[in-house]
């Protein structure tokens, strides 16, 4: 008779099942694709019996020449066997494929026809070499530390000056306001647009500020005189976003007329009209490496463009709903796109899909990314989700309160941007305020632990 010293901890059936599943999974994760190792003797016996039973009448016939060539590899069987580990071959390589023989008779057997790499099984989180789950990097949580009010309408866009002294906001009250970054005080108000200002950008190469609005206007402001010096005329409908090329003096704007246009800054000429989208182009980003222009549209596609030819390089159709936000990673050669179903990460230059970041089930209006690997997604319902870029772990969710006087439904984030030092996050909101967030210094890994539970059970086919 045994007396239990400790009480058995009671768990629910679900927990127990899950745990046993997890144990099994961990044990076999690296080699579950491999077949069970065969015993040599039993294998020989089986083959002999089988041959005698099924193929006895033809055993005397000569072996085909092609079969003989493969002879040294498949010692005793002329038919080859799927899944049998070849002696001397790497355990990673398995003979698979549509059929063991080459596709056409007479085709020479080469290394490519014989052995094919097995494609990855379900999860990309399980590399064959290292069967460990990637652990997300710890990031300190972000907290609100300043609310700036002054606009009389929704604040639709933000841009930070390259010298990190001030930032610009464009708003639905048709003004563009310049605020001091350190103190949050208003420095200047620019008027000129006749409808909502949807996009602002500050040039790093010249003292210009570019703005675009729902009145089809794209304006270039000279910051030394605070006046409009150029208009870029050509869009047929509201211009929703703009971006400047970092090295070439070229401006790209995207609009509700399903095109993006490339403008030469100095001469105001419309160099290329990037057409191909079938619905409003909501967001555009430019970079100096290929692909130079990336656009996301309400027809749920993302297009990567060739700036020289003005044609689409690749179309990414993975999203199921409108893509309203794009962001390029400052260090890596990757970018991310946001839509109400998922945020997806892609690899440049061809747009290879990397992974999904799911969990923020709201219309994502904006994305911003840090050099530390913090991805921020701001949604139309006022929530901000903070993600670890590499693993896709959502480490924080913020829903800031609206400014007193606003309705609770007036919470929404239209734009967010990190300042040049990447320590402050500035968001433009629908309650007519600008909110500034910074990292919480008092938090540590212990106070805000990482709860990384990647979903193992859900790796099933739909």
């Amino acid at each position: 008779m045994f007396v239990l010293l400790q009480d058995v901890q009671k768990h629910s059936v679900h927990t127990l099942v899950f745990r046993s599943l997890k144990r099994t999974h961990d044990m076999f994760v690296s080699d579950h694709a491999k077949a069970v190792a065969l015993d040599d003797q039993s294998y020989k016996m089986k083959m002999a019996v089988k041959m005698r039973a099924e193929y006895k009448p033809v055993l005397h016939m000569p072996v085909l020449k092609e079969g003989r060539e493969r002879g040294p590899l498949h010692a005793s069987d002329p038919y080859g066997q799927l899944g049998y580990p070849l002696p001397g071959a790497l355990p990673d390589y398995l003979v698979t494929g549509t059929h063991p023989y080459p596709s056409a008779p007479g085709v020479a057997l080469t290394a490519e026809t014989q052995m094919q790499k097995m494609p990855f099984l379900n999860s990309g989180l399980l590399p064959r070499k290292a069967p460990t789950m990637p652990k997300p990097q710890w990031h300190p949580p972000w907290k609100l530390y300043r609310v700036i009010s002054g606009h009389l309408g929704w604040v639709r866009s933000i841009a930070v000056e390259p010298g990190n002294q001030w930032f610009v906001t464009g708003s639905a009250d048709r003004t563009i306001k310049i605020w001091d970054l350190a103190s949050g005080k208003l420095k200047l108000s620019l008027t000129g647009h006749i409808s909502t200002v949807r996009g602002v950008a500050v040039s790093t190469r010249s003292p210009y500020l570019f703005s675009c609005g729902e009145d089809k206007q794209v304006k270039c402001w000279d910051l030394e005189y605070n006046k409009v010096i150029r208009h870029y005329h050509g869009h047929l409908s509201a211009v929703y976003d703009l971006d400047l090329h970092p090295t070439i003096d070229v401006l790209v704007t995207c609009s509700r007329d399903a095109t993006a246009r490339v403008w030469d800054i100095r001469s105001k000429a419309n160099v290329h009209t990037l057409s191909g989208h079938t619905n409003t182009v909501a967001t555009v980003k430019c970079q100096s490496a290929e692909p130079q222009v990336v656009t996301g549209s309400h027809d749920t596609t993302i297009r990567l463009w060739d700036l020289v030819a003005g044609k689409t390089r690749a179309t990414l159709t993975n999203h199921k709903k409108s893509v309203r936000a794009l962001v390029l990673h400052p260090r890596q050669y990757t970018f991310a796109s946001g839509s109400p179903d998922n945020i997806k990460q892609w690899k440049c230059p061809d747009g290879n899909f990397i992974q999904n970041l799911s969990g923020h089930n709201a219309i994502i209006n904006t994305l911003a990314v840090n050099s530390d690997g913090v991805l921020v997604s701001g949604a139309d319902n006022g929530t901000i989700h903070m993600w670890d870029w590499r693993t896709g772990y959502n480490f924080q969710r913020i829903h800031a309160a609206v400014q007193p006087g606003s309705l609770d439904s007036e919470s929404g984030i239209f734009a967010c941007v990190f300042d040049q030092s990447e320590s402050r996050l500035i968001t433009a909101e629908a309650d007519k305020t600008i909110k500034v967030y910074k990292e919480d210094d008092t938090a540590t890994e212990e106070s805000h632990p990482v709860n990384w539970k990647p979903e193992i059970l859900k790796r099933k086919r739909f």
Partner: protein
Amino acid sequence: ILSRLQRSQSTALVSTRREPPPYGFRKSWVPRSLEDFGDGGAFPEIHVAQFPLEMGRKKRTSNALAVQVDAEGKIKYDAIARQGQNKDKVIFSKYTDMLPKEVLNEDDPELQKPDEEAVQELTEKTRSALEKQVSQKIAAAMPVRAADKLAPAQYIRYTPSQQGLAFNSGAKQRVIRMVEMQKDPMEPPRFKINKKIPRGPPSPPAPVMHSPSRKMTVKEQQEWKIPPCISNWKNAKGYTIPLDKRLAADGRGLQTVHINENFAKLAEALYIADRKAREAVEMRAQVEKKMAQKEKEKKEEKLRELAKMARDRRAGIKAHGGEDTEVRERDEIRHDRRKERQHDRNISRAAPDKRSKLQRDQDRDISELIALGQPNPRTSSEAQYDQRLFNQNKGMDSGFAGGEDEMYNVYDQPFRGGRDMAQNIYRPTKSADKDMYGDDLDTLMQSNRFVPDREFSGADHGPRRDGPVQFEEDPFGLDKFLEEAKQHGGSKRASTSGRSKDYDHEKKRRKE
């Protein structure tokens, strides 16, 4: 067992397939059907069109693509997606393109941006290409300048393939001088570009990389079930349902209407009550009338008594004079007439506004007089002639007046005369604006309601006006001056004294 094997060897089946005759023995043999080809292909030595495996026949145009195989031996299923495009265009069509990749380390070489030189090279290339585009666009818009200097003189050495003495007069090579043709700077554009043509077809759509849709559970499907709409008023075809067939038709129109008899009783009771009330009122009125009459009689009696007493008193005083009847009669007549005169005076004193009958008649309009039957009260016996017939100058003088236009001679007499002209002069009565302002205009005018309790500082409250034109106090002191002038009439020289006084005053004022 071995013998059985040997026997099976001897009784081996012969294949029924017809093999073509081996090489060398095909002299007069022609393959006609598919089986004649056996395992292989066409026979080149037999000069007949052959279609082994039906290959090579002219097919009707079909949009089927030929099956292509890539380097690894796998069928290229995305040839459909790549139909009209460059073979190195990036198109994602495989299931593996949709699967998430493994999470790589941050400094993995795959995720790194291309190095600086590559980026710069790309930038240069792009910039130059864009410059070219921009300059083309600008040049198209700019005004005409001098002709571009195109001075290449390219020489090309060309070795033609057809050689011989006849071609090129025996020479082996030619030298060609290539010069760009001059463009006329003043030339207008050669082609019309204002034609609107429909856009060409877009590039073929990219394959849609969506995860397959999730399986619908029965529970979820049931959640979305919407019951069909059944209207209470319209049937399935859209026709209005008649009233008797409606869902809410519960036999409303079929029953006879039963009205409670108490309604009739109530109505009768009301009639009776009404009648009774009227009777009561009438009786009361009659009683009151009787009472009033009695009162009146009493009062009249009293008055008669008084009058009698007064008469008696007066008669009693006069009873001393002559008692003759004639004298009495004359006295009575004088008395009566005096009374009448007094009466008239009383009346006129008492009610001056009350017009006398005569005056009223005079102010009536002629249509009213006619209606009342008063304009012609006297009908004399003799024949009456219209006065307009007499004293007329007919003929030339009948109003024509010798062509004078300025004369106004339509009427020779005024219509009513000036007798009541005096009456028609406007005399404002005290209550002239009664209909506008009510009875108490004066109180309204003197009301102090609109004067503020506390006035604004600096506001001047001017003098209240009493009439339409308010004369202000004479600023120049003229009235005073005139008065003084009148006072000191001859003794002093009014002007000098006045003036000196004024000057003194002014001087004094200035000093002060």
